[in-house]
């Protein structure tokens, strides 16, 4: 069976993004349309202090907070450093670049590259780690066993 391959992009800004910038960027990206999957990558901001004498204490920070994406609320648990995108087709790439140019214009440079950044099929390791995964869209994006579920945004076509 031939698997459809979708174009994938990776956006790497020169600085880690504030949640406010992430909100603005995602809002514009989704308005541009044509996005199948999107991953926000970056170092984790834990809810509690992970190590040391204060381990387990609450970890109030300005970086871990709920962000709004197309009216949906999502708790941002990382400081975003890389954004992975999977598009419906490659005709959207210039639009995505234009959005990034606009958002990062007065801030800092960024890099955008096309390649394969998310898996589309299960690997043997995936099977050993996760067993049977019902929704294969999550493969290559996050741990299917994670308690925090991805959000599915409707109606952006």
């Amino acid at each position, binding site marked *: 069976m031939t698997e459809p391959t979708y174009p994938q992009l990776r956006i790497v800004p020169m600085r*880690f993004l*504030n949640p406010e910038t992430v909100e603005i960027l995602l809002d514009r990206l989704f308005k541009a349309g044509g996005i199948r999957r999107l991953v926000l990558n970056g170092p984790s901001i834990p809810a509690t*202090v992970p190590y040391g004498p*204060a381990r387990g204490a609450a970890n109030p920070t300005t970086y871990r907070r709920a962000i709004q994406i197309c009216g949906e609320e999502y708790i941002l648990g990382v400081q975003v450093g890389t954004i992975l995108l999977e598009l419906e087709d490659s005709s959207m790439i210039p639009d995505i670049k234009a959005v990034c140019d606009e958002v990062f214009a007065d801030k*800092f440079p960024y890099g955008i590259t096309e390649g394969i950044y998310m898996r589309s099929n299960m690997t043997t390791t995936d099977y050993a780690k996760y067993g049977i995964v019902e929704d294969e869209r999550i493969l290559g994006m996050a741990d299917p066993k994670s308690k925090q579920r991805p959000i599915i945004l409707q109606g952006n076509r």
Partner: protein
Amino acid sequence: MAYTPQYGPGTSKVAANRRNQMNPNVKLEKIRSVTDEDLILIMGHRAPGQAYPSAHPPLAEQGEPDCPIRKIVKPTEGAKAGDRVRYIQFADSMLNAPCQPYQRTYLEMYRFRGIDPGTLSGRQIIECRERDLEGYARELVETNLFDPATCGIRGATVHGHSLRLAENGMMFDAVQRCILDTDGIVKYVKDQVGNPLDRKVAIGKPMDAAWLKENTTMFHSLVGTAFRSDEEYVKYVQRIHALRTKYGFMPKEA
């Protein structure tokens, strides 16, 4: 002829900064001032104003054995009083921070007494008697060895030295111990292990990019001085590497 230490090789500005920091005859430039209370709050070992808890009776009271070494080596103030051993730990960004772990250990060994430094890739800890520590910590924080944005006082959860900076120029910190406040001053809101402080502790304004580039001790090909641009340094490192590698074969230098 008396031995004169060379401290390190290199013809670049970075190499010169390294030598200046290590050389105890070069006075470190004082840039900011932090009160005793603020330092104590950030380190979090004792409450401000509290007497120093002791680990043993003062040396004068406990009766020292007759030992020639003890006659030669004078105890530090903290050791004399029997203070506990406490620590301060720093994480330094690779993006032009004014100091970095190995450099910190070198310079502390040249400049301070009675210390036990621990050097890791992303952090450097210095342990010593509590009252000595407060003096040393002051020197490490108030002088040109420290930048509030790219250096962090971090006891645990130190990750961030090799990552990109945040939008406002602060080094990544999962526990966000310090924030860049609206007045442009970096303030600690948690102590070095991540316990919240009762008040914000101001530590100073972040240094600008030009100052950092001029005063850094870290080579960086993208944002600062490239290591390969310093030919003498490269040669020296290659020589040490070769000698270490061939050590078992009794190398003879040509």
